């Protein structure tokens, strides 16, 4: 293996790793979007909550896996409360009110993080199992990042199986396609919504827990990741698993290779892509609903 080839493979892995993180975050966002027609700007804050919970769990138990398991559960519970308290009532309130409510939630979460975890950025250690680099084919790469890539692919596979093979998956697909039709078919739409919302939140929490050892954990982390995640959703198309993955890969690879090849314009490239999609495919690349 030549150095150049190894270099590009490593960069490809970087792109893949970032894409998977974006995927975990945006898949919940996009399915909640597609099914509930609800835009949750606080999705980023839930991701940050996942990271903070994972930080505390790791600190208490000394094990990364405690955070890995606890964060999705805690964030799903937070999502449950949000759904029952606010979101259920705001489902038909129109996009602007939803944007405003969840925008308010961002403020609330920011200060909650500050009160409980302070202003200083925190760190979470990689799990011992995946600590440090491993070498294969003459390439040295972070074991933990490979784990993140694997996890992303695993989650994609599980979600795909659930959507295509199970009863609830069929209900979700029917609901995304046509809510009234689904209700007519005797599907308990409310229940499906609730489950999907909680699962979306759990995935955001998982993304936070997974990101924590790579990045640092601080109150503003959710607000910063929100815009890339929204761009992924718009590019991919609302409500589609395929779209979320395609959007994540596009954004992840454009950012990674943009940073390596053309750092001067890297930051604008994603927006150019977005503008192009909006002009030529206003419903995104793979909209769930035709």
């Amino acid at each position, binding site marked *: 293996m030549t*150095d150049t080839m190894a*270099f590009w493979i*490593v*960069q490809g892995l*970087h*792109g893949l*790793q*970032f894409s998977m993180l974006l995927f975990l975050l945006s898949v919940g966002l996009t399915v909640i979007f597609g099914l509930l027609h609800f835009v949750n700007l606080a999705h980023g804050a839930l991701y940050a909550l996942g990271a903070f919970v994972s930080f505390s769990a790791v600190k208490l138990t000394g094990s990364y896996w405690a955070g890995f398991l606890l964060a999705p559960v805690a964030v799903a519970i937070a999502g449950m409360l949000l759904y029952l308290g606010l979101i259920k009532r705001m489902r038909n309130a129109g996009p602007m009110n939803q944007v405003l409510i969840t925008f308010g939630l961002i403020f609330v979460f920011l200060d909650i993080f*500050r009160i409980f975890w*302070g*202003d*200083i*950025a*925190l*760190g979470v*250690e*990689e799990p011992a199992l995946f*600590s*440090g*680099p491993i*070498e294969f084919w003459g390439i*040295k*790469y*972070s074991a*933990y*990042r490979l784990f993140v890539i694997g996890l992303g692919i695993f989650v994609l596979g599980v979600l795909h199986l659930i959507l295509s093979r199970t009863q609830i998956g069929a209900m979700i697909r029917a609901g995304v396609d046509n809510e009234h039709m689904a209700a007519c078919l005797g599907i308990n739409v409310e229940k499906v919504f609730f489950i999907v919302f909680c699962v979306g939140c759990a995935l955001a929490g998982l993304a936070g827990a997974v*990101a924590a*050892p*790579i*990045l*640092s*954990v*601080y109150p*503003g*982390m959710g607000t*910063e*990741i929100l815009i890339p995640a929204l761009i992924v959703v718009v590019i991919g198309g609302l409500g589609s698993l395929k779209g979320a993955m395609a959007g994540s890969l596009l954004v992840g690879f454009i*950012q*990674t*290779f943009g*940073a*390596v090849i053309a*750092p001067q314009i*890297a*930051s604008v490239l994603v927006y150019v892509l977005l503008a192009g999609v909006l002009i030529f495919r206003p419903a995104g690349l793979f909209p769930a609903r035709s």
Partner: protein
Amino acid sequence: MFEKLKPLSVRATLAACVMAAGVGGVNAGETKVGLLLPYVGVYAALGNEIDAGFTLALEESGMAGDFVIVREDTEVKPPVGLAKARKLVLEDEVDVIVGIVSSGVLGAVRDFVDGAQVPLIVANAGNNDATGSRCSKYVARVSFSNAQINRPMGQWLYDSGVRTAYTMASDYAAGHQTMAAFSEAFIAAGGEIVGAEFTPFGKTKDFGPYLSKASAAKPDAIYVFYAGGEAISFVKQYASLGIKGDIPLYGSGFLTSPLYVAAEGPAAEGVVTGAHYAPTLDIPENNAFKAAFIAKTGKAPSEFAVQGYDAGRVLVEAVKSGASGREAIATAMSKVAYTGPRGALSIDPATNNVVQNIYVYETVAGDNGLTQKLIGQIDNVADAVNGCQF
């Protein structure tokens, strides 16, 4: 606009409320101080450290009663910082302003305090220009300049055997000034810069692509400038990607600041940085300071706490020398010199920047987590005049 220009007063601590006895209650001989720091936002932690250091200095002098403090929150937003500075000067009529963490806020405030002839003691913001081309008789800096910390590191790296270096920094003024100073000195010493990268400031989550690029260039060393959350991400990713085993990491001290190093964990072991303060500096002044700071706040001080302390000390020394009122304090603060927690310290009358030692330390595992092992010291580092004219 309420987010950007929101001028308001934030009482950071209860103690402050006691001291801020209210407008108009200033007796003759008392000095009114405007403490202009971020209490919310990304630098809130720095603001609180500086605040604690500053009040410690006043208390320690036994002259706390001679000062009235008015605190204002910059929210790390230049327009807000400027609005607050105006408020302090025009409404509260303070004698001196102390603080300012971000260079953006300093850039916004500089012309105003210069025009209003109000002395400003800068407690962090390191932009070279503030004591260079945009220097002012009324602006003195007790913290550092970006060049001051990193210029000596160029020679030091060469002397310790590094011949080729790859530089990486956040893409904003501090990053560029840091790297310019380091690179110039390193090249002058005989070294070679084999590559330089400026990563988008505040937006870079994944340094992987840049780190892999740096690693592919096979330099003797990587020299970086990152601070806060970016420093944590950077150091951890550097270790996780396995570059740590191949290429040593050097940088300016913020990379492994005591404030953040615990979050970096074992990844930070072996990283060598240069800074204007190291907590393990074993001199009586530092040991006394550390004990007093821990007694006051319950935690060990960072370089930011020291900067706050020295800002307070400079003010106290100026007032002790008999200065009272804006003009007198401005004149007196340029002449202050003493030995403090970071060793001998004085204000350079030519630029109003601090003259101080730069310490090189390695982050190593200690009994209670990570600690700093001093491995080098460059004495009395002063910046060139750089076009400064009062």
